[in-house]
């Protein structure tokens, strides 16, 4: 039975800017289970990253969660048998102690731009050490009571930190980790930098890894290596992955479940296999059709979704996808806002084709 780690419940995120309010995320709900991978797909600017940042309680200004909650079932890192604590992340102080323990220590994040995600003036060893100093604890037996050991936890020392850093660099496949631990980011290639980011993220043994388009800026061959690495590491430690991407091919390999987003709305959610073989929402279908296929005649044009992403200040009435939708039903789609319904067990979709109207 899947055990929930993070529940995102009907989350709305607003950005109040000079020209009005942008609803960057408009009612998104999904659950990340322990040890499983969930894929969040959609075009650029559809709110996938914003949802992930809301889960870290680090929305960029002036964004705020205006509705909904993000529930984290927190297990003690030291003693898994202790009862779980329920934390509503949206209620936490963004610079408070608890969220800072969660960030990095329990939820780690890797980013889209490995080239500039590492502070240029510090060595990889220093950067990994920074995370270790915050989140990695070393158990020390301070005494024994009957058969139970009394444990205490202390911070890692400098030497230990260096050793762990070398070990992590080795784990993520960086050659000559003993030398690379003293390398500055500019001395590494893009793929190596993303490996270092992963090393930092995993060095503190988090429960969840949020991967925000981790391979977008990398070569295809490097991309495959990084994905393999993430899968391998996920198996060796029990870790959930929230995989954010616009690349359907990548998500098919990684995720068990897929959430499709469009203009801040969650339009479909189902098992990966179902999304690929029985897509329900016209947007999902259009996305799948726009994947280039090998063996297709070269004269044939690639399928693309017609029209443009609408201006966030002037969202279309009714269903936000209707101006671009191939199954547009005049008089319905441009008037009625579709509801998010479960059309089959565990297959949710937001489309009027599946509603009686």
């Amino acid at each position, binding site marked *: 039975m899947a055990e929930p780690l993070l529940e995102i419940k009907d989350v709305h995120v607003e950005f109040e800017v000079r020209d009005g309010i942008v609803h960057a995320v408009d009612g998104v709900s999904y659950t990340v289970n322990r040890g499983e991978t969930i894929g969040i797909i959609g075009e650029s600017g559809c709110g996938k990253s914003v949802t992930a940042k809301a889960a*870290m309680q*680090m929305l960029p200004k002036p964004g705020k969660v205006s509705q909904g909650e993000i529930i984290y079932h927190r297990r003690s890192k030291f003693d898994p048998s202790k009862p779980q604590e329920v934390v509503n992340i949206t209620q936490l102080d963004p*610079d408070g102690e608890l969220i*800072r*323990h*969660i*960030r*990095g*220590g329990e939820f*780690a*994040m890797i*980013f*889209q*731009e490995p080239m*500039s*995600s*590492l*502070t*240029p*003036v510090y060595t990889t060893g220093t950067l990994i050490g*920074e*995370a270790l100093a*915050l*989140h990695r604890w070393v158990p020390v037996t301070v005494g024994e009571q009957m058969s139970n050991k009394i444990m205490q936890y202390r911070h890692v020392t400098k030497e230990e930190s260096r050793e762990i850093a070398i070990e992590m660099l080795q784990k993520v496949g960086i050659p000559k980790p003993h030398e690379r631990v003293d390398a*500055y980011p*500019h001395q590494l290639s893009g793929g190596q930098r993303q490996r270092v*980011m992963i090393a*930092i993220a995993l060095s503190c043994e988090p429960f969840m890894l949020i991967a925000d388009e981790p391979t977008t800026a990398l070569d295809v061959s490097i991309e495959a290596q990084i994905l393999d690495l993430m899968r391998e590491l996920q198996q060796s430690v029990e870790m959930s992955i929230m995989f954010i991407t616009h690349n359907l091919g990548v998500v098919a390999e990684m995720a068990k479940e897929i959430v499709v987003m469009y203009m801040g709305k969650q339009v479909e959610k189902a098992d990966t296999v179902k999304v690929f073989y029985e897509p329900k929402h016209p947007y999902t279908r259009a996305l799948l059709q726009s994947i280039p296929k090998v063996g297709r005649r070269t004269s044939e044009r690639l399928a693309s979704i017609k029209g443009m992403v609408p201006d966030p200040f002037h969202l279309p009435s009714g269903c936000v996808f209707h101006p671009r939708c191939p199954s547009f039903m005049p008089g319905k789609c441009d008037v009625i806002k579709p509801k998010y319904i479960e059309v089959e067990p565990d297959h949710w979709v937001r489309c009027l084709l599946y509603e009686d109207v």
Partner: protein
Amino acid sequence: MLSYIARRILYMLIMIILVSFVSFLIIELPPGDYLTIKLQQLQSVGDRSALLRVDEYRARYKLDQPVLVRYWNWITNFVKGDFGEAFEFERPVREIIGQRALMSVILALSSITIVWLLAIPIGVYSATHQYSLGDQIVTTLSFLGLGMPGFLLALLVLFFAMMVLKVEVGGLFSREFQDAPWSFAKVIDLLKHIWIPALISSVTGTAGLVRIMRGNLLETLGQPFVEAARARGLKNSVVTWKHAVRVAINPLIVILTSEALPSIVAGDALVATVLNLPTVGPLFVSALTSQDMFLAGTILVFIVLMTMVGSLVGDLMLAALDPRIRLD
């Protein structure tokens, strides 16, 4: 790295020789410089001792020799520490500058310290609180500071102190300490006086540096590594100072060394003139107007020297601070 430093020092030497030659030519170029006038005066007196002194000057500065010989004479003496005579004061240049150099250095260093102590925290605040009321106030004030010339501010302060506070501002010492030998009481007296000129001459610098710091930091705060540092669980203040400021401040190091070092020699001459400060700046201005050639030339060479040493030190500090530009 060592060969780079050696190369830089070599270029510096060549540059200094060129600059010193050009400044020597400029010193010599206009008719009616101090030495010529002096010789004419002595000749018109016409008595034996006056004529003897004319011959002495001729021999000392090799006046009947070609330019290159005169230049060589000047520059070799310069290297030996003999900068020639300040004719207006009838004393060696070395002595005249020496008296004021200490005050110049003290004033420049205190003004640089004020600039950095104020500008960095204000700039950081202004960037981290972008568009807040505090940032708006800082921005307005810094534009005012940038726009107001230092000497005007000095005049305003003088006026305000005289008319409203009825105290005397200006100079670096009270009257009783003016010519007194150095003592603890004199140092205290100096500290009592120096903060006003130091503050005035740091206004423009502070305003400029606040703007640069704010701009650099805003750009850095938008970089992904700042977000990545926050996502690692660091405190906001640690993210700001250890990651963002640490990267944003690097370009400012060059400003510190390449602008501050020359200002040690001849800081803001106008402010110093208005406030009647015994520093090198006003001396340089008066030497230029009275064409007191050896005095002006000496100060000019020192300014150039400081500028070049400053930019070299700046580059080396930058290399030490920022691994990306380190030369292997």
